[in-house]
């Protein structure tokens, strides 16, 4: 089904509709559907969060949108352009406007190149003039002083390396940036530095972000709206405030209740939903709700086993894929 969030004033920058990515199974079994009919739209200047646990499909989703992996079905429109219809040359031109920052700064930077060469490279690939000056300016903007531009990645700290990764993505002046767990490999005391930098850059350069993150507190802090992904599909989509203060889906509630709060006075009087069991990969057409085997609300209910709940707008701007929206909240009445 098409789950269009409330229409922003202008045309959205990115519209993803029914996007699906299957991987062929080993030993000729059923294919594995890593992303299963995902739909959402991202407005200009927005920070859209995609949260979920490992294996939920959040990284595959971003790669399928960028066509770093070919989608199996569905459509992606970027600024009105049908991304899936583009040939290789047109796609390369479009990629200037859609960039990605990866989780592991060391693994994504060539160890033999200087910081400046790393940032110059995409400019050269796209045949853009004045690469040296642009790269130097971008490095300064992310907080790498000129005296350090000739150093190689290993000579930088983890936080500085991630700044270089950000500079490399932003030097092409993209409109949309995918941030794929950009701070999760960094030390706690460094994470806030990088989040602040990303937010400053967003304001200065008018960027739109899709922020892929497993840390819910970071998502709450950083994102305007959030989609909660489970086994390849959106379970809930709403403003950050709604998701974290007044969620409707039992999976969202379970995730939130599992995050320990750094305050013993709050932490020890909380109720917690502890999910049982372990996430198993899902074959297509398994039927029923994909969360039902771990769900604190629907595990025993017939409708949850029979019918997959569609992602439906239950309150203005708040969508959930659940037959019993809001019921889990009674379990954690705080």
């Amino acid at each position, binding site marked *: 089904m098409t789950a269009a969030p409330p229409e922003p004033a202008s045309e959205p920058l990115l519209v993803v509709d029914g996007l699906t990515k299957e991987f062929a199974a080993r030993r000729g079994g059923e294919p594995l559907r890593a992303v299963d009919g995902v739909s959402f739209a991202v407005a200009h200047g927005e920070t859209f969060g995609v949260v979920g646990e490992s294996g939920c499909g959040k990284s595959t989703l971003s790669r399928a949108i960028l066509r770093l992996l070919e989608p199996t079905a569905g459509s992606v429109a970027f600024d009105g352009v049908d991304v899936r219809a583009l040939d290789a040359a047109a796609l390369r031109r479009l990629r200037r406007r859609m960039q990605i920052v990866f989780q592991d700064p060391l693994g994504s930077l060539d160890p033999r190149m200087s910081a400046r060469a790393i940032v110059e490279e995409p400019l050269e690939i796209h045949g853009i003039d004045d690469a040296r000056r642009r790269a130097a300016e971008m490095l300064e903007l992310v907080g790498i002083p000129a005296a350090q531009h000739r150093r190689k990645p290993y000579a930088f700290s983890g936080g500085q390396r991630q700044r270089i990764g950000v500079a490399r993505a932003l030097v092409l002046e993209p409109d949309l940036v995918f941030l794929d767990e950009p701070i999760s490999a960094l030390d706690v005391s460094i994470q806030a530095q990088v989040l602040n930098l990303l937010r400053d850059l967003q304001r200065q350069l008018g960027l739109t972000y899709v922020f892929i993150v497993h840390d819910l507190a970071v998502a709450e802090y950083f994102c305007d709206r959030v989609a909660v992904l489970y086994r390849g599909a959106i379970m809930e989509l709403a403003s950050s405030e709604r998701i974290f203060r007044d969620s409707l889906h039992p999976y969202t509630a379970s995730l939130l209740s599992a*995050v320990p709060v750094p305050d013993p006075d709050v932490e020890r009087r909380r109720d917690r939903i502890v999910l049982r069991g372990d996430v198993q990969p899902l074959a297509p057409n398994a039927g029923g709700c994909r969360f039902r085997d771990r769900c604190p609300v629907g595990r025993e209910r017939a409708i949850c086993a029979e019918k997959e709940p569609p992602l439906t707008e239950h309150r203005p701007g708040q969508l959930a894929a659940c037959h019993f929206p809001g019921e889990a909240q009674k379990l954690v009445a705080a």
Partner: protein
Amino acid sequence: MNANSQPVLSVKDLETVFHTGAGTVRAVRRISFDLRPGERLGIVGESGSGKSATALSILGLIEPPGEVVGGSVLLNGRELVGRSDRELGAVRGKEISLVYQDPMSALDPVKSIGKQLVETIRRHDRSISRKAARKQAVELLRDVEVPQPERRLDEFPHQYSGGMRQRVMIASALANRPDVVLADEPTTALDVTTQAQVLELLNRLVSERGAAIVLITHNLGIVAEFCDTVRVMYAGRLVEAAATRTLFRAPAHPYAGALLRAVPRPDRLERGPLPAIPGAPPNLAELPSGCSFEPRCPLGAGRPKCLQDAPTDRALGARHVECHFAEEQLKQEVTA
């Protein structure tokens, strides 16, 4: 936990270095702490602060180029530092055990889970028959909610999910009822819902068996949830020691205060820039002569005393802190 009882584990002036090409890395710098029976003590710090090296030093598991160069570790009153591997082998897993961050590194990939559990159970008591040990292993799997334990006993580690492997590791670390469990980032490799499962299990087993635990983590939320007392580690030193509630209400060390403020909290809608800590942790091979947090410190950066003298451990009310200006820090926390 009884504050008056004898410590089950007493660490004094423990010092560990690593000899590297870039110089001598001082990973653990003369740290001391006592662990009481049944206590849940958290050591919180960032990567490179020396918290994992502390656990390995206590267990005598530091390998070259690393070396424990000083100090003492008393377990039930007996010295562990300087003991042979054979002597330590008799203690590890029986009186004191370790839960690793990554259970895969502690499990043998080519042996079935059942075989490994049977070996663990029989290592310290040969009078248990293989058959009886196997029965115990099934019970152990059932206890940690591994489905169909009889069948899954013969499976191999890669056939278990990450959360299941860590539950099995925790159960096996507690199987011989040790007095002390060292858990080094036991949930860091896991998802948040799996983390909640594993912490709940750890909580239950530690209570049932009456073990004391040293929980090593970078996650302040886990300390708040789990620990009675907390030590904050920075650049190889324990810079603050306090009851968990005391520390979280008002940290006396500026590093602890800055760390608490820099982390977004899931129970608050925060907006605006986060109060980040500038710079990065120091290189442990080239530590400054003064306070190692001075260059990043909101309170002491540039102050002559902080530049010149490394602060030493002192009592401040019911807690211990290593900071020249802890009173100032506390005053700020209270008025904030």
